[in-house]
């Protein structure tokens, strides 16, 4: 069976340079970014945003192990995030108690809590995944939905474990310190989050390149055929599910330390839906997609919500727009945009990409004006929408016309452009 001879078989492996550029470089870049952020001395607001982004990155990537890699659509991934987080919360409290009464937990640094989260998430994945991974596609999605509802409901019921409506809280400033971080101030927490974000991203990336990771992709593509190359697709799904649960738990552990509270709500369908949005909007087909999605969505969630009450509407519209016109998500758009530029680095090509981008912007601006006007109209406080020094009052016909015209021209231009052939062709 192994009678191949080295000289006869061509070497198909990619060059070392290619490998470095596509596999090592991005991780180095990530590390660089994480390391350089504190150099800009971000404010508390920014730090809390970065911390939230780090948590969501790991969470969204873990979700994408299911959706993007194994092709499993889950509406209940927050269950593993939450259970991991709860495990970490209990760990946190155990460390606190041990710091008074002693015990083995006294030797466990707060910094390592995400590992407890990982164990919790993976264990939950192993328990829940066992029955649910016997199905795929829509039945799997429905099972995940049912389980999320069940676990969340149980969360409200088993008070000693989940703390009921109020959840359980803890104090991260206990136990032994690692790397000289007391974890008290936000700046310390940033290093903690940055460390685990990097570890999580790197490990999940490595996972895609293992035999199991590759077979997960095969299962996504064609589960039927996988059976006939010696693999049990259910087993492959199950193992990926456990890993995804573990990494979700890791994110949960990070979140436990960051917020020092966990409530049963975080096990429910709502955060599960949000992580789905992140992975999909970012681009489930690409490894980096969910990272983009996490950045964009977390930013929207914490900042856009200050500017506009309708941010969830924008989020929904963005999501729907992605499904309809860009199933590759933001990552896909970026890639095809750069590819288009690279391929036709002509004036015409540039003009095309530019035209696309500007008409998309125009349409977006129009829609935003309309939505914001509507929000203000329905609030009835008589407020005006004042972007860039403009004064658009909802009770003036003119404002609405502006919005309609912008949106109409933008959408019309997009239509014309796409009729002339897809982007970049």
């Amino acid at each position, binding site marked *: 069976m192994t009678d191949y001879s080295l000289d006869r078989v061509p070497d198909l492996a990619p060059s070392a340079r290619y490998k470095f550029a596509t596999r090592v470089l991005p991780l180095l870049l990530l590390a660089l970014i994480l390391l350089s952020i504190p150099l800009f001395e971000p404010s508390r607001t920014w730090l809390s945003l970065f911390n939230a982004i780090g948590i969501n990155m790991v969470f969204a990537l873990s979700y994408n192990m299911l959706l993007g890699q194994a092709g499993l659509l889950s509406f209940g991934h927050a269950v593993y995030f939450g259970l991991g987080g709860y495990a970490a919360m209990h760990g946190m409290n155990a460390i606190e108690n041990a710091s008074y009464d002693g015990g083995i937990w006294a030797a466990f640094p707060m910094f390592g809590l995400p590992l407890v989260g990982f164990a919790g998430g993976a264990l939950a994945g192993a328990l829940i995944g066992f029955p649910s991974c016997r199905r795929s596609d829509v039945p799997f*999605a429905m*099972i995940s939905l049912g389980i999320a*509802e069940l676990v969340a409901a149980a969360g409200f019921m088993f008070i000693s474990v989940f703390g009921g409506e109020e959840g359980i809280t803890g104090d991260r400033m206990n136990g032994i310190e690692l790397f000289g971080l007391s974890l008290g101030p936000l700046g310390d927490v940033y290093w903690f989050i940055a460390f685990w974000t990097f570890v999580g991203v790197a490990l999940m990336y490595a996972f895609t390149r293992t035999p199991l990771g590759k077979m997960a992709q095969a299962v996504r593509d064609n589960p039927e055929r996988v059976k006939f190359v010696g693999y049990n697709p259910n087993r492959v799904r199950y193992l990926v599910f456990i890993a995804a649960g573990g990494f979700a738990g890791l994110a949960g552990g990070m979140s436990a330390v960051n917020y020092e509270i966990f409530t049963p709500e975080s096990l429910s369908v709502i955060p599960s839906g949000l992580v789905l949005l992140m992975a999909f909007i970012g681009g489930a087909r690409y490894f980096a997609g969910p990272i983009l999605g996490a950045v964009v969505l977390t930013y929207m969630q914490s900042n856009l919500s200050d500017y506009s009450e309708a941010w969830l509407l924008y989020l929904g519209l963005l999501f729907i727009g992605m499904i309809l016109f860009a199933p590759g998500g933001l990552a896909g758009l970026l890639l095809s945009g750069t590819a288009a530029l690279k391929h036709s680095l002509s004036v015409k090509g540039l003009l095309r990409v530019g035209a696309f981008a500007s008409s998309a912007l125009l349409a977006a601006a129009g829609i935003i004006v309309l939505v914001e006007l509507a929000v203000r109209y329905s609030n009835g406080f008589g407020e005006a929408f004042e972007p860039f020094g403009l004064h658009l009052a909802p009770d003036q016909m003119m404002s609405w016309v502006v919005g309609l015209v912008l949106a109409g021209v933008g959408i019309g231009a997009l239509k014309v452009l796409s009729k002339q052939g897809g982007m970049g062709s």
Partner: protein
Amino acid sequence: METVVFALLNGLIYGLLLFMLSSGLTLIFSMMGVLNFAHASFYMLGAYFAFTLGQHTGFWFALFLAPICVGAAGACVERWGLRKVHARGHVAELLFTFGLAYVIEELVKIIWGKFAVAYEIPPELNFSLFKLFGSQYPAYRIFMLVVSIAMLAGLWYLLKRTRIGLIIQASLTHPNMVAHLGHNVPRIFMLVFAAGCALAGLAGVIGGNYLVTEPSMAFSIGPIVFVVVVVGGMGSLEGAFIASLLIGFLQTFAISIDSSFAEIFSFAGLSADGDVGRITIASLAPMLPFILLVLMLMLRPRGLMGEREF
């Protein structure tokens, strides 16, 4: 006795409401294979439309107009949205409707505000029909019963007596072939989706004032509707009917049982302290449908009456 009768009556009404909600979903699901995540959002739209229309035309006109408006909204959604993702398979469709649910909820908040609106039962129906064990039985519930039975009958006819069902089922797997036989598949899809949404809208008109009309009403009832459709069995109207009633009864019976696990255990000679003992059967009620869902999918994925797995 009393308890049982009440539980039966309440379960029946709740079950019928669930059926009204899920019948449209069953229609869409069985014919188009689309598990419409936004179905409950159309239910919500029905309630809000009826509220607004009712202020101008009165309840009885709204009862007809609102579902038509919802159906039209559904048709638009199909025409300019769902149709585009159809070719990319069920998961893409599911995701689309998932996003749609978000959008509808936010639009409702913008149009009608973030809080409940005062959508009330019409005065003509706001009286108690009879008295049972000292408790009144409102006429509106009988009205709900009548409407849902009518819905069942109408749908039955549509599904079993016309060729539309066949055409759509065929076009699920072989859309091109069906077109080559001369059937305008996209239009039929649009009509079916619109009809399903209109049914949800009707449920909203009727359920909105029976319960509450507020922006989160879709989200809170949505998952249960899936339970009904899945437990009833892929695309089976009878199944959906039975499952609705089953879940209705299950939940109301659970609420009316007044014992906790501690009592049950001690009855069995065991002792249960702490959390498990504290839990009452009644508080398990909201979980029961989902337990049923998960068990059903694992043990009998075709559901109670479904002809095929999905």
